[in-house]
């Protein structure tokens, strides 16, 4: 029933696994970024795969699961801290069916599956977001916060508001899948 969301075909690159990445997004260090498939990176997004852990060898900096959406103007930056006198970046892992609203800044350590983050949110360093949690629009989550499963957080600082309904998982899954199928190219 829902109308398609059109994008200009020239703007997006589609990969074999169905990821759609805007040419206007800034993808730094793409070799350190994993996209699970059918994930959309909108225009203006900045993904900092270049901020990798020091040390030899290959390092995954940011991994996103399937059916994710990184909204327009989002900044995805791995968290960092100085531990025992050494400054280091730490990987960011994001599960499946995760939508991140436009202009959010995300420095989380872990985001589970079926998570929805609203527009203009700031997700502080080393935040852990469990499955099926949601963050309302314009929420500021301070660093090191833990958001439990099926919780809605809102405000500044973001605090627990309510428990989400039991069917959140199915809802988010169908919404994210639907969004991906609605996200259609327009030849021009």
């Amino acid at each position, binding site marked *: 029933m829902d*109308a398609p969301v*059109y994008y200009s075909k020239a703007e997006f690159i589609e990969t074999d696994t169905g990821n759609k990445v805007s040419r206007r997004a800034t993808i730094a260090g793409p070799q350190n970024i994993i996209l699970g498939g059918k994930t959309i990176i909108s225009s203006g997004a900045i993904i900092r795969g270049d901020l990798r852990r020091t040390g030899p060898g290959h390092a995954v900096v940011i991994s996103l699961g399937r059916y994710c959406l990184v909204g327009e103007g989002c900044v995805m930056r791995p968290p960092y801290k100085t*531990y025992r006198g050494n400054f280091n970046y730490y990987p960011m892992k994001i599960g499946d069916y995760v939508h991140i609203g436009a202009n959010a800044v995300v420095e989380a350590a872990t985001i589970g599956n079926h998570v929805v983050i609203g527009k203009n949110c700031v997700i502080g360093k080393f935040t852990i977001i469990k*499955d099926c949690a949601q963050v309302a629009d314009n929420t500021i989550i301070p660093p090191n916060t*833990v958001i*439990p499963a099926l919780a809605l957080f809102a405000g500044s600082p973001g605090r627990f508001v309510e428990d989400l309904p039991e069917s*959140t998982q199915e*809802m988010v899954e169908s919404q994210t899948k639907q969004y991906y199928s*609605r996200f259609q190219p*327009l030849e021009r």
Partner: protein
Amino acid sequence: MAPAIHYYCPCQSGESVQTPPPPHMASSSASFHPLHCLFFCEECDAVRCNRCVSIEVSGYYCPNCLFEVPSASVRAEKNRCARNCFSCPICRSTLQVVASDPPDGGDGRPSVSLSNVGEPPFFLYCNHCRWDSAEVGITFEKPTGLAAQLQKFEDSAPESLEFERLKEHFEPFLRTSSLSSSLSHVPSTSSHHLPTSSATAAASAALARDVPGVGKYNPLARSRVGRDRTANKDEMPEYKSRMEIGVLGQLGSEGDGSDVEALRRMELAEEIASLEQRWGNSWTTSLRTSDLRPLRIPLHSKVSKRCPTCRHILIKPEQKAQSVRYKIKLVAANYLPAMTVALPHTQGADAARRPQAKAPSASDDRNAGAMMAGKSYPFHLALTNPLYDPIQVRLSVQRMHVTAVTDSTAPEKARRTPFAISLPTSSFPVAAFAEAWEYDDDDDMFGLEDDELGLEMGRTRDKDGKGKVKTVGVLEKRANVTVVGGEVVIGKEARGYVKFNMLVSYTYRSDDPLPSEDGAGTPSRTVAKTPEVKTFTFYTVVDLGPILPREEKVDPDI
């Protein structure tokens, strides 16, 4: 706002009344819920909502460290996390344990530079508002087990001691009351959380009745003192408080002299703790922000939900706190057809006007969605069948009570029903749900979905253009979705919202019961072995959006 459909749960209305309240009344929103928030009781064959289900705690956990607290220790720890989780007394965000002289030194805290890296004293630091516990003189020798160290203060507070004494004092009395009402005393597990726990309710009711002034005393604990089993109600000794009331005043918890003096010297509003900051404290605390202490984080609970009438379990979560799976999950979405409503005139206009559109601006959206008074509009209802059997659906609009309308705030505007709804009068089929479509959807969704969407758009626009094509009736069938069209005719003087109650009844055949799938929310209903036709009826409210008064200029696009 986009047009929406909400489903009715009859729990708010009385026993005899089964029809929902008129939709234009503000209070009606309490009875209508989105489908995904509702449950379904198979025993009663009825919709249940969050307001009417009864709730049982099935486990406690700390929302910060996610530790699953055994229910036996919940009470001793006073329902708060007994590990290292604290919330900031100023802004309520989570506090972090930091060592003195933080290693990076540059995070805005130059004041503490007492000792070496990672060395005591440790203190709590707020990442959001930069409050730290050293400000109020709370420091720790070790970075672990902080709650135990702080709980000592809590427990030795005069108010806490007094409360313990009170509990002890009333304990024998409580015990006799509960014995005399011949109810077994429910053991400590979580019973005080339940308003429905009959034993505690009876005990506290008995207490309130027999002891004047106790009011709603909540029997919180059995104490370990097992004496006085036979104590009579008349033998209640007089209670002597631990200390004089005047002593408490010196603790700064009373709004007199010292507070006035403090207020006189205050310069900033922030020096007074806001109501929100003091709200979560167990005892009255001082007015000064500087006296606030970090709070241990209150525990959360996982709950199972039961049908209020037949007590069958509707929701039973898995034991693990952070699991999002359920052992039992009877949600209405698995039983009732899901319905969405759309106004094709807004969609057509939107898509035609700006194919590139990322997100329509708010004002534009509102205008496009609104309907003009004195015109008629088609609307689409899409019904999705969650059952494994095909269903026959019949829709009907609940008649508007004109009297009720005239009762509203502006009586002159609503002499007659402001709008009329036409819906297909005959019943129509919605095909059965099959997993195959899901896979289809998943794999080659592009081509398929693309075509379909394009087609639909095209047809919609045609219809708008000619206005001759039928608008009322079944418009489209695909997979387990049937789209039917309806029409709304809006009166010339109409105002407000096009919002109406709709009765949906569907019949389904359950001839082949699926033996393997039981309990865990199976969409198919195993009613009987013989082929049988059953009907289920429920109410919904359809909100098509606001009506624009005629005076406003007509948008050429619509």
